């Protein structure tokens, strides 16, 4: 039961560069939490703060209720998988995995048992006598994970573990990590900039921007109920369309949205008082929630089409805003064709001037 808690944690580099302004975060025990965000958002820094590889400037970090803010890495009950794997190049796979146990003064037999158990789980058995340079990228990755598993950590930290692998291997390793996650009784913290990894692996996603938590929640909640434009745009591929619009009328908490490129207005339930008639707004709608149907709300002008076999992507614009549609395979369109788009009403997002999502989700 090792919950990781950040209490008012700040991280400032050399007294001037603020990476983490002030963060309060509770990572549930025995769940896998993914930190996502663009580069420089502080996700790796947060991980290193948990590991103790970076010093906390202010605030408190606890693991399983124990204050570890100033504890050395080895005394935190953590293990870490590095982006570059950081295997010891001069040691064999066995020695790499045994190193921490040797330092912890485990008996020879204990070390052998523990390493071979983990090697069996990760199918590293035949590789134990090899040096890292004799291994493929995927094998090195597995050794790095194995080295962490051997230590039986309370908290398992993974820093962009798949980013050095090619696409096919990445999918395999992702599934492997998901399997390990199921069999492992540990809190896992996973840093990535890959939203597919975030969506598929996470129990909870923490979306970060400039050291600030924009939103935390289960993947589907974040996908369906993003709190602002940043979160909405960050998760999902192709990313959400944002269409410049105008509030045509307000009746109670129902607004009618229209504007350039709208064939007719679109009704949405928003938080009371979010808009008054005539306000500018941003309509958010994911590419898969648009369909080509006559009598739709939006007027779409095509520019380019990508056929991907199982589906097609059509790029174009609605009014002055860029727009992408994801559909089932379809006929080829000429550039500049005008199409009518139907919007899936329960998947509409409306962002106000401060880019907050003001749509009322309870209505769904």
């Amino acid at each position, binding site marked *: 039961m090792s919950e990781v808690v950040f209490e008012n944690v700040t991280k400032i580099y050399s007294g001037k560069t603020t990476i983490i302004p002030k963060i309060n975060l509770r990572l549930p025990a025995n769940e896998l939490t993914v930190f996502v965000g663009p580069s420089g958002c502080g996700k790796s820094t947060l991980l290193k703060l948990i590991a103790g590889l970076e010093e906390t400037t202010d605030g408190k970090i606890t693991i399983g209720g124990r204050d570890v803010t100033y504890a050395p890495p*080895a*005394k935190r009950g953590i293990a870490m998988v590095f982006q570059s794997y*950081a295997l010891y190049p001069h040691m064999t796979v066995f020695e790499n995995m045994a*190193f921490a146990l040797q330092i912890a003064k485990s008996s020879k037999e204990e070390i052998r048992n523990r390493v071979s158990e983990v090697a069996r789980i990760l199918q590293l058995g035949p590789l134990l006598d090899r040096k890292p340079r004799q291994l493929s990228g995927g094998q090195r990755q597995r050794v790095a994970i194995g080295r962490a598993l051997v230590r039986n950590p309370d908290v398992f930290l993974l820093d962009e573990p798949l980013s050095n692998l090619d696409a096919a291997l990445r999918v395999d390793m992702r599934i492997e990590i998901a399997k390990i996650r199921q069999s492992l009784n540990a809190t896992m913290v996973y840093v990535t900039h890959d939203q597919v990894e975030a969506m598929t692996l996470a129990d909870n996603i923490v979306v970060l921007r400039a050291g600030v938590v924009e939103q935390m929640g289960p993947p589907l909640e974040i996908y369906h109920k993003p709190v602002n434009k940043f979160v909405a745009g960050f998760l999902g591929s192709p990313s959400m369309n944002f269409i410049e619009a105008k509030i045509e009328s307000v009746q109670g908490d129902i607004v009618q949205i229209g504007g350039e490129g709208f064939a007719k207005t679109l009704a949405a339930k928003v938080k009371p008082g979010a808009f008054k008639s005539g306000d500018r707004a941003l309509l958010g709608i994911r590419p898969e929630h648009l369909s080509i149907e006559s009598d739709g709300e939006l007027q779409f002008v095509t520019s380019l089409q990508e056929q991907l076999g199982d589906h097609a992507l059509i790029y174009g614009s609605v009014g002055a805003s860029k727009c992408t549609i994801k559909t089932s395979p379809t006929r080829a369109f000429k550039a500049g064709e005008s199409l009518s788009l139907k919007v899936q009403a329960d998947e509409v997002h409306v962002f106000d001037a401060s880019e907050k999502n003001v749509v009322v989700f309870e209505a769904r």
Partner: protein
Amino acid sequence: MTKDHALTERHRTAYLFLLPSLILLTLVAAWPLLRTIWLAFTDATLSNPDINWVGLENFKGVLSDPDWWHSVRNTLTFTFISVGLETLLGLGIALLLHREFFGRGILRAAVMVPWAIPTVVSAKMWSWMFNDNYGVINNILQKLGVIDGPLAWMADNPALSMAAVVIVDVWKTTPFMTLLILAGIQSIPLQVYQSAAVDGASGFRTFWKITLPLIKPALVVAVVFRCLDALRIFDLIFIMTNNSNDTATMSVYARNNMIAFGDLGYGSAASTLVFAFIAIFTVIYVQFSRLNLVGGSSEKVSL
């Protein structure tokens, strides 16, 4: 154009590009070397152009000369002590300079200064500092109360002269060691150290188990380079100890016979022996370290 034809064409071009450096190497390296070896089998002197083949006479002479064996002993002593000290100091300084601290860039540059000064200049400079009457070193040691009277560093006592020469060589070439070792240390990725920290390795253990094995290739190269230099040491000793027999090294011995005594053949035999000595040392050392390197990472650290 056929495939074979294209290939020979390319080979011809390759040789054409290599030719200037091959000619240059022949002129400045191969020719002097071969000529020296040939002279070693003759009775050539500086003044007498009449040269006769004498077979192994010169080598017999050199190898039965106690002064030669004395110079061999001097060379080995000098090499062993100075390279040893330089390695230890270089390693220590490299580890310090690898850490991040204010003014590191300036210090890194400053450390290189002794290496940048020409040997003749630093030898003369140190000779004055070691001077028994006016030298600053005797002065400081006396003021500190380490010695009662001035020491005659460069005169009576061979051990003292050797110590002085070693001190200057260490001062002069430790920067070279530092630089090579620092390059080795810097090729170790930060994440490997972070990983060791997570694994709970102490600073001491990290050094022995991670840093040292990983810089071993760089260390071996540095030591070989320094040994090759030290085994043929000439200028520093020749200038500092006034050509004294007490501190003469193999190169000084060869030079004296060749130039001072004008005995070109005899001196060439000594030179050839120095060459053979260094060549054998290099082959043994490289062979030995390669065997050991199987356990280390001889290529650039790949993770």
